[in-house]
């Protein structure tokens, strides 16, 4: 299956991602931020699909958009204070912060442009049809140990979250 109109979709999705990212950090209302983030995550899933990574795209949708963001929305609803929308949204060092971050971005782009020659010209052909199988084999073969560590991490996170959030245990 060859993707159709690759440049169009790339620019479209990239623009969507960046636009929603800008909305995330500028919205006053946290729920609107979260919605923008969801849109961005979905657009990013589209980018993953264009990069022949359907499994990651699926995981992105299920875990990020369907799981983590619901958690975010829950918490926003619990802690949504009218007050927090009225007060100052950006802290005092916002200008310095943005400048520093932009500088970092400039640095990154400079590195990319400088090191463009180092990039391999030909991309390895990844068989899309067997992507899931290959990911699975790697995950349960070579990366078995990290995988288990990740599950342990999740367990710790569950316990941690419960301990933190519960009123009385």
């Amino acid at each position: 299956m060859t993707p159709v109109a690759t440049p169009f979709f790339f620019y479209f999705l990239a623009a969507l991602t960046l636009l929603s990212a800008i909305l995330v950090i500028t919205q006053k209302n946290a729920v609107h931020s979260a919605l923008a983030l969801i849109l961005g995550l979905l657009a990013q899933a589209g980018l993953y699909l264009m990069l022949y990574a359907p499994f990651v795209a699926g995981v992105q949708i299920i875990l990020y958009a369907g799981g983590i963001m619901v958690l975010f929305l829950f918490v926003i609803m619990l802690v949504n204070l009218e007050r927090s929308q009225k007060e100052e949204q950006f802290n005092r060092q916002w200008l310095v912060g943005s400048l520093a971050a932009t500088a970092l971005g400039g640095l990154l782009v400079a590195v990319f442009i400088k090191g463009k020659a180092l990039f391999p010209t030909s991309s390895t052909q990844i068989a899309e049809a067997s992507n899931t199988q290959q990911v699975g084999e790697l995950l349960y073969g070579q990366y078995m140990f990290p995988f288990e560590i990740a599950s342990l991490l999740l367990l710790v996170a569950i316990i941690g979250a419960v301990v933190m959030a519960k009123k009385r245990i």
Partner: protein
Amino acid sequence: MPDSTPHPSPLELGTPDKTFLDSNELILNMGPQHPATHGVLRVILKLDGEKVLGVECVIGYLHRGVEKIGENRTYTMFNPYVDRMDYVAAVSNGLGYCETVEKLLQVEAPRRANYIRVILTELNRLASHMLWLGTHALDIGAMTPLFYTFRDREEILKIFEKYCGARLTTHAFRIGGCQYETYDGFERDVKTFVDCVPPKIDEYEALLTSNRIWVERTKNVGKISAADCKALGVTGPVLRASGVKWDIRKALPYAAYSDFDFEIPVGANGDTYDRYLVRMQEMRQSLRIIRQAVEGLPEGPIMAKVPKVMKPPAGEVYHSIEAPKGELGYFIVSDGSTQPYRVRVRPPSFVNLQALDLMVRGQLVADVIAVIGTLDIVLGEVDR
């Protein structure tokens, strides 16, 4: 028998001063316009999350001053008013009132009248229980029983309509007997009805009794002990489900109940499921009574001799009957004039409703709805 358990303190109501997330306690107002409070009952719930810390019932939205009206009408004129209290079981209300005034006048209704009274009252008990079952099941989420019970209740109402012209507020009895002789085919109608209802009751039970979800929703929900029932004056199926074998039809027989052979179903746990079972059994027992009554319906007059203008001797009398919802009592004080000096009604719904707080403490919000359903209250009777 004094109650040994400490009684719950009244609710201290007030808005929590902390915000939503932090508040341990949340005050939620349910009703008076709520689909599950069976009328205009307002329940103020004090919640910890979904757990009920206590409830307070606000009643009186349907108050019409029935008792006060009674003091300003003659004995006969007040008779139709009592039908408007428990409008689901109007016949029982009328029976209680008529018997009380008869007791005051010291007349006895003729045997045939008593039999007709028993038949109609028991039919009314069936109708009331059917309505209870339908709405209770609907509250818990089962839609279908409502339609089945209304289908069968319709047959009872048809008999009422043929007998006295009214379906709901029947005004079926008069002081001293019945005004109407049974219509042609009354016995046949009642017999047919009695024959065809048991399979219908089986049908309801097939839908609910062993339904896992129904059992889970009702078992151990709204438990109340026999001692608490007695302390709060709870009567009727609620009391019997707690294991107390108290039924005025047996204990202090009135009308013609001493002639009939029937049993008093009792429960053991006093939870919502037991109350359900007790009421289902009661429906079957009612059918038994009706069958006996209609088969042994004696000939004779239907009206005792009562004066046209009733002037009962001065004095007071209390008489109670077993209404579908519990003990329905009338306390009438006569000063020898044509109007009662004081009428006081002891409505079973009102008294049973007082147990709500005790029954739902520590349960969940959804259980409050189940318990209100199982108490089988009629707001017309609670507020009078």
